[in-house]
């Protein structure tokens, strides 16, 4: 249904001008990948350090409250993140460098949306980690940070990888928030202040009026997304066997 009549136009067309029969998806693929990797790069340290805060550095009473707060993050719908991003974040970025709706905005908002996956996974893992190791580490007079960076986290490499893959899948599939703050210009960006359009946002924007080959091109981009997710799942299965971690 979707594949007929396109040939190699997905890569070699000039750009995405569907009304003119041009269907190069590369700029949008690049946009999706950039915003996903960028947000992961931010979300990993955010997730790790916030989980360290909750499990090691704040008082136990604060920990329950903090955990609920992170869970609250996951409950907020993506459109609301998009709304807030557009109303508050984009104007700030605009001050630094117009137009404001940009790769940067998308990366920041997406990071806020996915760091809880990593944080919550780590907090659970810390609770299940061997208490004996911590006890021994303390009895040897080792500092907390030594325990964290040389004993605890290296042991949890598998867990961290799993959470990262999960976050990647979530990020690349996100539609509404990135649609609202990224500007939606089809172009490979040359700086993070430039607007981009992701594959997902593209489908959402154009589906309403797409006809014929345009429509099938959109379906194809959907299949592209699906296959990326598929690869991700295969990767996670393979790594599960290698590292033997629990999802």
């Amino acid at each position, binding site marked *: 249904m979707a594949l007929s009549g396109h040939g190699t136009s997905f890569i070699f067309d000039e750009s995405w001008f569907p009304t003119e029969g041009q269907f190069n998806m590369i700029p949008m693929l690049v946009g999706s990948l950039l915003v996903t990797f960028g947000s992961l790069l931010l979300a990993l*340290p955010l997730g790790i350090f916030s989980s360290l805060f909750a499990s090691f550095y704040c008082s136990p009473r604060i920990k329950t409250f903090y955990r609920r707060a992170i869970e609250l993050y996951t409950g907020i719908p993506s*459109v609301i993140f998009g709304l807030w991003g557009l109303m508050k974040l984009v104007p700030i970025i605009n001050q630094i460098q117009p137009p404001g709706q940009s790769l940067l905005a998308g990366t920041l908002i997406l990071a806020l949306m996915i760091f809880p996956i990593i944080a919550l996974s780590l907090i659970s893992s810390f609770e299940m980690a061997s208490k004996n190791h911590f006890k021994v580490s303390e009895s040897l007079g080792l500092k907390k940070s030594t325990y964290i960076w040389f004993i605890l986290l290296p042991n949890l490499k598998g867990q961290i990888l799993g959470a990262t893959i999960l976050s990647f899948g979530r990020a690349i599939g996100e539609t509404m928030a990135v649609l609202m703050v990224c500007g939606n210009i089809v172009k490979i960006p040359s700086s993070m202040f430039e607007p981009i359009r992701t594959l997902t946002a593209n*489908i959402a924007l154009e589906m309403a009026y797409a006809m014929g080959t345009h429509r099938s091109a959109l379906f194809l981009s959907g299949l592209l997304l699906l296959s990326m997710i598929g690869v991700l799942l295969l990767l996670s299965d393979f790594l599960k066997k290698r590292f033997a971690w629990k999802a």
Partner: protein
Amino acid sequence: MEGLTKSISWIVGLALIAMLFYILGDIILVSAKHFSLNFLLDSPFSGGRKGGIYPIIISTLLILAVSLLVVIPIGLASSLYLAEFAEQNSKGIIVIRKSIEVLSAVPSIVFGLFGNAIFSLYLGMGFSILSGGLTLAIMALPLFITTVEKGFRSVPSNYRLAAFSLGMSRFTMIKSVVIPYALPAIFVGIVLSVGRALAETAALIFTSGYVDRMPESLFDSGRSLSIHIYDLTMNVPGGDINAYKTSLVLIVLILATNTLINTILKSWYKKRIAL
């Protein structure tokens, strides 16, 4: 090293909480200034930038109802089958489990695409509450099945043994032992599905439609709260105030369902421990 780790952890920890308060606070403050009860009871006009969201609330609840009506029976039946009756290592079952895993990772917009193709076009339902509800049902099903199946599997084997030794049939055991024990998990599954459904936007844009008036039947199109927020923000100049107010309503709705079910769960556990 210790000082560095400690200070960065504190900074990040506090900053993220501050951000949460900033986001929620922003929504609450902006909405509170302009909120009135009429917002919940009026219909929208002038593209939504004026008026209320009553029909939209109704549409949202209808879509939710349709999806729950599909998810709960099918989900319960499937999880029960997977947990109790299926041959665990057969090829077919492994394929089913894999598909569930894959489905739960699929992006919502892709569901929207296929929901559109299957329900709206192929089955001819057009843009309707029914299409939207059915699409959401398929989205929520994997999550529901995974949660509930775990609940069924967690029934301790001594309960089952006791039931068998008392001469209960398989069916009675399931009805009187397994299902009641797994009830909290079932509730959790429902909460998660509801949460997912309420927050969904991308899957609904092309299935339940855009129209913001009161739907006349399930075959009529209707707009959900999340789509309303999207439309007001992106397409309606000056719509941001109402977008904020709608966001407040949506968040309150999500929090309310969560807290409601959590309190039911807590009282449930209390009763069980008292037993």
